[in-house]
């Protein structure tokens, strides 16, 4: 089954044909994931963490295997990947008029890389996919972006590549430590996860991983590439950046950093949470002061990802469930906002919100949907983001009450900037007198899909929670085992 998914991905790599093929490929991917989801009854989810497993020797001389596996967490994110993939193809249907073949080639390549990241169970393979998605993203921003695209593309690429290389060093370090301890040189995830690392080394190795993931997520001081990249990228690029690439950072932390370095993670939890909270507040404040719609939405991402990092380092089940939820809902709500920014830009040829206003009149449908997603982004009950943020705050409260207090204030800020979006764009006097058509059928379809999902997640979040549960329980178990071991050691002393 995974072989089939992998084959689809491999097939996607070299397609150099226009949009229909892109659409077909991403829909096939989505269908496969849905099929897989449907096939796994809730029963099977509880007995094993891994839904499927595909392993093939790749570079045996270095102990590198082509090892893909899917658990609940991966499955959710894979579903998200292909769902957003379909939307990305749809939203660039008319936006991209030049060099279509190459454009969709890049788009599919990114999807393949992201999907690979969510499935790779070999550290080398993981790094491989991690890097594979960068080049096409670079092209996407650099060729089809707006005015300042070259600068943004450079910045994006160099930030992520630099941090990725540091992660690669950490991976190599782990590889050798494991090899010297056990005599088995391998990049396999399941082997490396058991490596016993001296605390000091573990700290450095973890920093290597954390920097890569923190840049990608992005955590507060490493976020500067994000507004530029998001702002300049074409609509589909922003959608994929916000919806998928950021998620790979969070996924990496959940999958690798926490289980591999549990002691260190416990030690740095508080500073990390503080950074997260700083990100929440800073992102929100910056978002409020932006006049460029896409940059504004980009800063809300920084703010939302602050919740994610805070949640991850709370290290309890509630918060981690919230994180997973947040990953999914943020992808939907922010993705929708980016799409809307793209649509408005197509109509008004500007991203400056000072030049918008009163758009509700000519475009009531877009106004309504815009309101929905602005509300989602501020965490209104009934919509997915509320569930996510609520769970995170609840979880964090158990760990660090004071952090929660500050983080919760971020919700107020988010209300402020969300309302500003709606107010500036849709309400108020009209600034332009051009005729602005409302949604076309295609756009309606995209937005409807997103709206339905976000409402569904708000009302019935249980399926997502159930799917992610085994992975999270496993993670928590890992932490507990290590804690017990640590406690035991101190007891013996």
């Amino acid at each position, binding site marked *: 089954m995974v072989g089939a998914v992998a084959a689809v991905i491999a097939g996607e790599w070299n397609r150099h044909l226009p949009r229909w093929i892109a659409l077909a490929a991403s829909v096939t991917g989505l269908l496969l994931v849905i099929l897989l989801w449907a096939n796994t009854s809730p029963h099977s989810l509880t007995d094993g963490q891994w839904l499927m497993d595909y392993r093939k020797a790749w*570079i045996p001389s270095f102990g590198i295997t082509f090892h893909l596996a899917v658990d609940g967490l991966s499955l959710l994110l894979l579903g998200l990947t292909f769902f957003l993939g379909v939307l990305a193809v749809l939203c660039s249907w008319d936006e991209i008029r030049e060099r279509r073949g190459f454009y969709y080639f890049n788009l599919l390549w990114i999807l393949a890389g992201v999907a690979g990241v969510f499935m790779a169970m070999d550290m080398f393979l993981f790094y491989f996919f991690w890097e594979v998605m960068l*080049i096409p993203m670079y092209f996407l921003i650099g060729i089809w972006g707006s005015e300042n695209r070259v600068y943004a593309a450079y910045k994006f690429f160099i930030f992520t590549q630099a941090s990725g*290389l540091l992660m690669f*060093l950490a991976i190599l370090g782990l590889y050798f430590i494991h090899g010297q301890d056990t005599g088995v040189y391998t990049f396999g995830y399941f082997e490396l996860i058991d490596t016993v690392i001296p605390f000091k080394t573990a700290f450095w190795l973890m920093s290597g991983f954390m920097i890569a993931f923190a840049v990608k997520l992005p955590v507060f001081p490493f976020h500067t590439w994000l507004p530029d990249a998001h702002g300049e990228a074409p609509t589909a690029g922003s959608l994929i950046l916000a919806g998928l690439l950021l998620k790979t950072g969070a996924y990496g932390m959940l999958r690798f950093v926490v289980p591999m370095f549990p002691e260190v993670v416990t030690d740095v939890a508080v500073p990390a949470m503080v950074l997260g909270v700083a990100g929440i507040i800073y992102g929100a404040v910056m978002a409020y002061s932006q006049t460029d719609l896409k940059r504004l939405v980009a800063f809300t991402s920084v703010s939302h990802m602050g919740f994610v990092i805070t949640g991850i380092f709370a290290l309890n089940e509630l918060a981690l469930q919230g994180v997973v939820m947040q990953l999914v809902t943020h992808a939907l709500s922010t993705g929708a906002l980016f799409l809307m920014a793209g649509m408005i830009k197509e109509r008004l040829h500007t991203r400056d919100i000072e030049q918008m206003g009163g758009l509700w009149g000519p475009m009531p449908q877009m106004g309504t949907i815009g309101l929905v997603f602005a509300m989602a982004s501020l965490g209104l009950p009934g919509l997915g983001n509320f569930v996510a943020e609520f769970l995170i705050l609840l979880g964090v409260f158990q760990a660090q009450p004071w952090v929660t207090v500050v983080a919760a204030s971020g919700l107020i800020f988010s209300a402020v900037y969300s309302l500003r979006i709606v107010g500036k764009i849709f309400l108020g006097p009209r600034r332009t007198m051009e005729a602005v058509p409302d949604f076309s059928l295609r756009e309606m379809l995209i937005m409807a899909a997103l709206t339905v999902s976000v409402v569904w997640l708000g009302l019935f979040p249980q399926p997502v929670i159930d799917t992610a549960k085994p992975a999270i329980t496993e993670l928590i178990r890992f932490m507990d085992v290590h804690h017990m071991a640590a406690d035991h050691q101190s007891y013996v002393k």
Partner: protein
Amino acid sequence: MSNNDFSALMPLMVLAGASVLVMLLIVARLSHRIIQLVSLLLFVIAFICLLNIRGMLPYEVGSLFMMDSFGAFMTGLIIFSGLVVNVFSYIYFQEKEEGPKEYYVLLFLCTLGACVLAVSEHFVSVFLGLEILTIGLYALIAYLRTRNHSIEAGIKYLVLAAFSSAFLLFGMALVYLETGTMSFAGMADVVAAESVPPLLLTGLGLMLVGLGFKLAVVPFHMWTADVYQGAPVPVTAFIATASKGGVVAAMLRFFIAIDGFQSEPLQMVMITIAIASMVAGNLLALRQKNIKRLLAYSSIAHLGYLLVAFIPGSAVVLQAVSFYLLTYFITTFAAFGVITILSDSETDADDLDRYKALFWKHPALASILAVAMFSLAGIPLTAGFTGKFYVLTTGIGQGFWLLAVVLVLSSVVGLYYYLRVVTMLFAGTRDLLPDPPARYPVFLGISMAVLSILTFALIWLGVYPDTAIGVVQGLQLK
């Protein structure tokens, strides 16, 4: 000289004989086309001879040459470079007014010199090979003698190479003075027996200076950019690959024989050189507007990376260096091949601005150049990544974290200028480039075929390097 000796040296003799044969052909006033095809054939024959002797490795010829699997691998790589350079040369030189025929004689001689370096295990043969190589290169670099840059580059190379040869010779003399032998094996016995005396160390240091010039590592890199820029493009490709490969091979053989890695001061010097090369190479390349100069600085950085694989002195060094050279050769040829094809009779296509929007005009050429750039930058899916991975593994495996970190950080700097080239390829819609000369469809076809094979190899080594790694792991020094 026994029969076996004869066949072991066959590849080298073919190369030597080829230069004479080509000279005779020139006397017979044959056309450029025939000479070029004959030399292509001769390169292939040399290559086949090399494949033939696989069974008899390792084989020692006298006390001068050692044909072992590493030597054969390097010789193969160098002959292959000669072949590729040969292919690219036709179109390039046919466009120029100078008679291109003698060029092939020199090319054979240089290839021969590099090959001799790769298999020599004696100071005499090392020096002999080095001089055959360099003297050929003087002429090759200044081959387009009516162009200002060429003459400048030729003179510069002449002066500096002669200078560095003197250093090398003096170093060798000192080593000889201390050890009383010129063969690597003999030296190894002496060095192992006693602690390293200062005079020997001085000798080694002087040799390092000499070799450093040939390898163009910092601080002996001053000539690189000018020579790269001034030399004809195929020759630049040759300097970047074969000539450095031969020197690296000789150096590796020497260091492993005398176990030079154990010597603390020598190691410190090498580490300093490696770090300086990586950092300076990448920093200097940042602001280059000329792609040949850019590649010159990038080659300095790459030699620095190579030293990272070289310094640890563990068992994997041989594999790592060989593999890295393999990837680097292929990548460099892909890049220079594109430049060669795009050059016209007046100027080389070395101004970066001329590459604007190349992708939309010649997608194939631009893709090849882009892949080559990504490979130089060490991005996954390309050979460069696997090579860098190998180097990092070697370095970290022996605990050289400093080198590894510097490598990573400096390659981040490197990313910027490689990306600049790639961005150029896709930027804008203007097209300033001339069409590739359509007058020589056959040779253009051959060149494109070679380029495609190189690109395929680049990606294949990046995606599925296991076969190549297997080959490299089988390499041995005797």
